[in-house]
């Protein structure tokens, strides 16, 4: 049957969730068989102990399988001009070997998705994102000499994060001492190529490692051998989620609904409403959504704000309703946790303006304790993100932290 599955492309439905190129290793490590679907792949939610996995992110070195991230390659003479038109940031200014976090909007200035843009060459970029956009990317390419290819399955990637991430790479023979945040560098590896970027989703010192599926297993084995002295361990999505909340990062379809999937029109959000206005470059020339965003900026017509909250007590507040003055509903918590790193009870939330400025916010929580709910109305304060930001995340060269 296996032979048939491999040879007959029609039989994809027998395994609707694909396995990543690292699956032989992650499956062996997943002691509790704790899997979940992510973008059409089977991915580890935890390998057995989320607290220990989170601890590895902040204490030693952690490895997360990034393969399901959707990837598009953009090449051709007009690649930079195209991306300037597509995204809100200045893609021409991004130098070769650089990476930036970016978003793209529809014509009404509502966010379609966020992602990271890698400039691999003068006319060669890669977009990494959460959702799928081929029709939008192709339609946006009308009038540009540009080639767009969906290459999700052609890339195998791991995220190596933690204070000892640099030490592990050093021991693995990759010299990245002078690699600054949001820069990347290639190394020969296993007869192929390994690209290492100083990027990540934990707000800590960390790197992402990119190769082709053929070298995936070799990469895993090499990293784990080199990282043993630093307690390198695989982590699942639950541990990563805590780290990303501590870092204040948002996820499409968790912290906001992408406009092209928003069945309810009022769920769409602009960059201003997601706290992403800092990246909108109004001076670079026209881009999709620019007119609407300029109007929103001038008229101050944004309706929502995405904010960080610090909540009294230690009861985590996932999915809660936010009230002003304990009475008026003003928003929803989109992500929350007790932060083990910051020792604070934190949350990301969408709040209806102007309540993001008024203070006097409360979060309503139903805490289930042995089959009875404690109903809590907890005071919450707006606060800066990230909630946890160790200086090591930016130190160049990094030390043996």
């Amino acid at each position, binding site marked *: 049957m296996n032979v048939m599955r491999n040879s007959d492309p029609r039989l994809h439905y027998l395994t609707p969730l694909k396995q990543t190129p690292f699956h032989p290793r992650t499956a062996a490590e997943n002691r509790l068989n704790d899997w979940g679907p992510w973008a059409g792949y089977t991915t580890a939610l935890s390998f057995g102990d989320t607290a220990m996995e989170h601890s590895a992110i902040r204490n030693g070195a952690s490895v997360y399988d990034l393969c399901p991230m959707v990837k598009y390659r953009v090449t051709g003479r007009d690649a930079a001009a195209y991306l300037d038109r597509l995204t809100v940031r200045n893609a021409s200014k991004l130098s070769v070997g650089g990476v930036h976090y970016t978003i793209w909007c529809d014509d009404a200035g509502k966010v379609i998705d966020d992602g990271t843009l890698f400039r691999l060459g003068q006319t060669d970029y890669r977009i990494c994102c959460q959702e799928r956009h081929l029709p939008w990317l192709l339609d946006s390419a009308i009038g540009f000499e540009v080639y767009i290819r*969906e290459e999700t399955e052609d890339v195998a990637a791991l995220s190596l994060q933690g204070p000892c991430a640099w030490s592990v790479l050093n021991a693995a023979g990759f010299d990245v001492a002078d690699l600054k945040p949001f820069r990347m560098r290639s190394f020969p590896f296993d007869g192929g190529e390994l690209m290492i970027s100083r990027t990540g989703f934990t707000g800590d010192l960390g790197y992402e490692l990119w190769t082709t599926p053929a070298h995936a297993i070799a990469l895993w084995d090499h990293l784990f051998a080199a990282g043993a002295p630093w307690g390198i361990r695989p982590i699942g999505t639950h541990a990563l989620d805590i780290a990303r909340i501590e870092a204040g990062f948002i996820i499409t379809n968790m912290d906001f609904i992408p406009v092209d999937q928003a069945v309810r029109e009022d769920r769409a959000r602009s960059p201003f409403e997601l706290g992403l206005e800092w990246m909108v470059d109004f001076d670079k020339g026209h881009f999709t959504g620019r007119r609407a965003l300029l109007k929103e900026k001038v008229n101050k017509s944004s309706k929502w704000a995405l904010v960080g909250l610090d909540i009294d007590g230690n009861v985590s507040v996932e999915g809660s309703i936010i009230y002003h003055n304990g009475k008026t509903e003003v928003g929803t918590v989109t992500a929350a946790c007790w932060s083990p790193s910051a020792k604070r009870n934190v949350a990301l939330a969408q709040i209806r303006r102007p309540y993001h400025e008024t203070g006097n916010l409360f979060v309503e929580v139903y805490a289930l304790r042995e089959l009875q709910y404690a109903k809590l109305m907890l005071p919450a304060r707006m606060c800066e993100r990230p909630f946890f930001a160790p200086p090591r995340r930016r130190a160049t060269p990094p030390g043996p932290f």
Partner: protein
Amino acid sequence: MNYDAVIVGAGHNGLVAACYLARAGQKVCVVEKNDWIGGAAVSRELYPGFTYSNCSYVASLFRPEIMRDLELPKFGLQILPYEGGAVFMENGDYLGMHRDHDANRREFARHSKRDAEAYDRYSRDVLRHCRFIRPMLLRTAPDPSSFRPRDLSELAWLGKQMFGLSEAAMYDMIRFWTMSISDFLDEYFEHPTVKAYQAVASIIGTALGPMSPGTAYVLLHHAMGDVDGNVGAWGFARGGMGSITKALKASLEAAGGEVRAGNGIEKILIKNGRAIGVAMENGDEVHGKRVVSNMDVKRTFLKHVDEGELPGDFVKRVKAFKIRGSSGKLNIALDKAPVFTALPPNSPHMKGDMHFTDSIEKMERAYDDWKAGHYSADPFQDMMIPTMIDPTMTPPGKHFMSCFVQYAPPKVEGQDWTDADRDGFAKACLDQIEKYAPGFKNSILHVEVRTPRELEKEVGLTEGNIFQGELTFDQLLFNRPVPGCAQYRSPIKDLWICGSSTHPGGGVMGAPGRNAASEILRDLRAPTKDMSEAYAVL
């Protein structure tokens, strides 16, 4: 015996109306011309051991509010969601359908990577339109020319729905309600077979082709239903579609209602401008304080009411009501499951709807034949094998196959259908299946062939139109069936209509019957405590 209401026709809408009236304490009697009940939601055993879904064959639109109000599960109704589906392609491949999002995307990607990633936006847009229309299903359409407070408030409600949309969404809505499905799909997809599959729901039951304006709305009519909250999903009624009307009959009888089958009506009795009952074909009369017709609007007023009783303008409008027949049906008892050469062994695709029309152009060609007055030489078929899921309809290992076929004109080149026409029509369908499943014909035990001729004669649907009138925008809402007559009433006092000719239209939905009962009870100032409002669309 003088009933409170005599209902003409034991189809699903007639029975739904009867159930609600009976539960409100009304003495009701349903009269039915056939020896069996069900109208177009009917299951008969035409071959020993095989139960058919003789007309309608899938369920999605039947309102869950009605199933619950009338306790239909208690009376035996079970709706089973189905999976799968496929379009067989001329080149020997197929496009399969999957309930799983990732499997569906990969299947689309086999044919077009772009289309695979276009599906999310497409389904968002269709769902947006569904959300707009769903709250209207269980409401009486307002009369825009009336100044009665209720019509004004309903118009205001409708306006609020409309103006609750953004400007862009409003434009989309107006375009969508009037455009062709072919144009609509071109905005999302590139692959002909992907488009052909999506277009299916927009031509079914409609005497229009996929390139005709107005067909996009028909898609919505098929997408706005749900199976247990899964909007757009379809299912089978366990035991065949007749289970729906069987459960309704049992619910009606439990509420004290009566069904008299096997005797059709000759005419609706009218005295001093009021309907007072019906005269039966066998000479009996059944009297009631009101008559509620489940028959289509043409059959009701042009065949069973003296024209002299009606305003001339009304008669003219009823005559002009579009109710053109476009479809036929083959019900097939099979000795064994067919083997489709395109499908992998044990394919889940056979559990859903299967088609042989792999492009919009081919579908339009089939419609061209209809325009010329012929049945389609290369027909479009919506083929199902419910017994892939439902174990109750045939002996184990045997199968029931339901083939809905377009196009079949109400008359063949202007002449009535002959038996030879019927056989030619069936042959075109069976040959088409045989082409994709060699040997299929050898496993046929029995075929029931229904052209518009049989549908009109047996089920009573004028011209064989399955929706009791086309679902084009000019015949919807306050224009259904005719302007000024969209609130289940007629120009004749105490004569009501409750079939699919009325808002919100056809399909096994039950909403027209429920809404008609609601209006009758409102007139009677009787309580409607057993009638739920439409579930909120959050």
